[in-house]
């Protein structure tokens, strides 16, 4: 059985969570077994996960799971995995997964692959999966041979796919230790665009912007697209933009459908973090900018001229 840990926000599921469910369902099909989802607490839409292929949803309620705590969460997932006889545990490689993936693997004595971006392939002695290494400069194929495997899936690896109908939701119990961390507060940016690691459309800019006061045209383009804004390392280091916008080898590695880069030359460290993007558009006035070699579409011109024109063209197309 494949067990997928699915996070919910007040009862509803984000796209990334549904991606993990579809990934788990496809994994179960490959292994010729079924797939169950584990949710913490009661999620109003839980039965909807059946549409994405799970045979049932296991709903685990405990006061100890009210807030994220890596020990409590990992113990809960591991204990349910043991009790239900799961051979593969799937979860998202996000800020939750990064704290618990390794802990679950230790608890289950399981082989572990994190940040995976391919569906598993069955082999003679287990399964293989692929993941980006060197922030996307290379890909490694990992063979998991232990009786139980833990896989955390990178966002945008596959798209959620409806393959069935709503399923039953079963309340279960499991030992969950008391959390030893306390969540005091959460501070999330307001707005409706997806946060950077999950974003499908990203508009990014670099030193070619000349100063933080010029970012209005980038924000206008992002607004027109419904895209998330990002930046290069020098821009974050000089404080023009917040650190969390920095994409690249020492920032966030992303794989959106569309990455538009304005005024970014395309140093190898930057390319490493973005070259998994499905489509890359580069706007740069320097015809020698290395980024042009890694792009699908290029505009060799002054970004202060091009970006507003592109914004207008997108508004026109959307109207």
């Amino acid at each position, binding site marked *: 059985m494949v067990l997928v840990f699915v996070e919910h926000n007040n009862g509803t599921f984000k796209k990334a969570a549904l991606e993990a469910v579809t990934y788990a369902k496809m994994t179960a099909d490959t292994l010729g077994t079924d797939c169950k989802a584990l949710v913490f607490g009661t999620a109003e839409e839980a039965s909807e996960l059946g549409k994405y292929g799970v045979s049932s949803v296991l709903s685990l309620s405990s006061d100890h799971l009210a807030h994220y705590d*890596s020990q409590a969460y*990992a113990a809960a997932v591991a204990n349910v995995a043991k009790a239900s006889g799961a051979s593969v545990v799937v979860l998202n490689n996000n*800020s939750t997964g990064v*704290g618990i993936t390794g802990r679950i693997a230790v608890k289950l004595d399981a082989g572990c692959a994190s940040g995976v971006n391919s569906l598993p392939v069955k082999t003679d002695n287990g399964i293989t999966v692929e993941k980006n290494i060197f922030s996307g400069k290379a890909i*490694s*194929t990992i063979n998991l041979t232990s009786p139980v495997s833990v896989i955390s899936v990178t966002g945008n690896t596959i798209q959620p796919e409806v393959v069935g109908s709503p399923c039953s939701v079963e309340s279960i119990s499991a030992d969950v230790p008391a959390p030893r961390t306390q969540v005091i507060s959460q501070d999330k940016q307001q707005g409706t665009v997806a946060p950077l690691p999950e974003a499908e459309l990203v508009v990014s800019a670099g030193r070619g912007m000349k100063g933080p006061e010029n970012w209005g045209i980038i924000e206008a383009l992002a607004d027109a697209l419904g895209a998330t804004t990002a930046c290069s390392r020098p821009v974050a280091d000089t404080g023009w933009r917040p650190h*969390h916008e920095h994409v690249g080898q020492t920032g966030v590695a992303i794989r959106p459908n569309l990455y538009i880069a304005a005024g970014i030359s395309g140093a*190898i460290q930057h390319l490493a973090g973005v070259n998994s993007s499905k489509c890359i558009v580069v706007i740069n006035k320097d015809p020698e900018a290395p980024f042009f070699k890694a792009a699908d*579409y290029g*505009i060799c011109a002054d970004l202060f001229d091009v970006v507003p024109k592109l914004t207008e063209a997108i508004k026109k197309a959307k109207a």
Partner: protein
Amino acid sequence: MKQLVCISKTPETTTQIKLSGDSSQLDVAGINYILNPYDEWYALVRAIELKEQIGGTVTVVNVGDASNDVVIRKALAIGADDAIRIDQTPDSALSVAKAIAATVSSDGYDIVYCGKESIDYNGSQVGSMLSELLDVPFVPQAVNMTVEGSTATIQRDIEGGTETISVNTPFLISAAKGLAEQRIPNMRGIMMSKKKPLNVVSQDISDSSTTVTKYTLPAGKGSIKMIDADNMDELVRLLQEEAKVL
């Protein structure tokens, strides 16, 4: 405050990755190695800042052979007091975490740091695994930390924002950008680093649950299409109809 910083050695960020003939190995010829930036710039420096503020010690620990001593000495030059090198092949995250746990579990560290990931294998697993093996709370992706007495208040990155966590020692955090500012070792630090203790211990922990069977390089982009700056309608059309991303 007794602090431990887990450090790893990684190829420098400008490294071009090449494969050996049969793709089963990375071609490491000519690669320059550095301290993993997340371990050095953020984890190690925050530990040293805290020591400067409230006292105590900063120990660094690394898993690998004697060729790692160069980057370990750099950590000592930046300001760690002493170092442990566990002489074992770091063949997987689990074997590294187990080797560190086996070496330090009875040493009573108050705060253990890892970088949020190593920039080579991008696994982000050692911190999570080590926290489980040491049975301590784990706060991943920390971008800010203040400590009062035995209580730390930590901000960590979450999707679209930050989360503020309170935790008592002992605990483990993984360091992300923002936790501290990079420090360049000065001449005095470099001189002193040569005299600081670098203790080598042996562990022999292997992990056969995962094996890398192959490396590949990403498929390159086809030829680029250049679009005229005055024809953004054409770019939008291509994004919709050809690339199908809008």
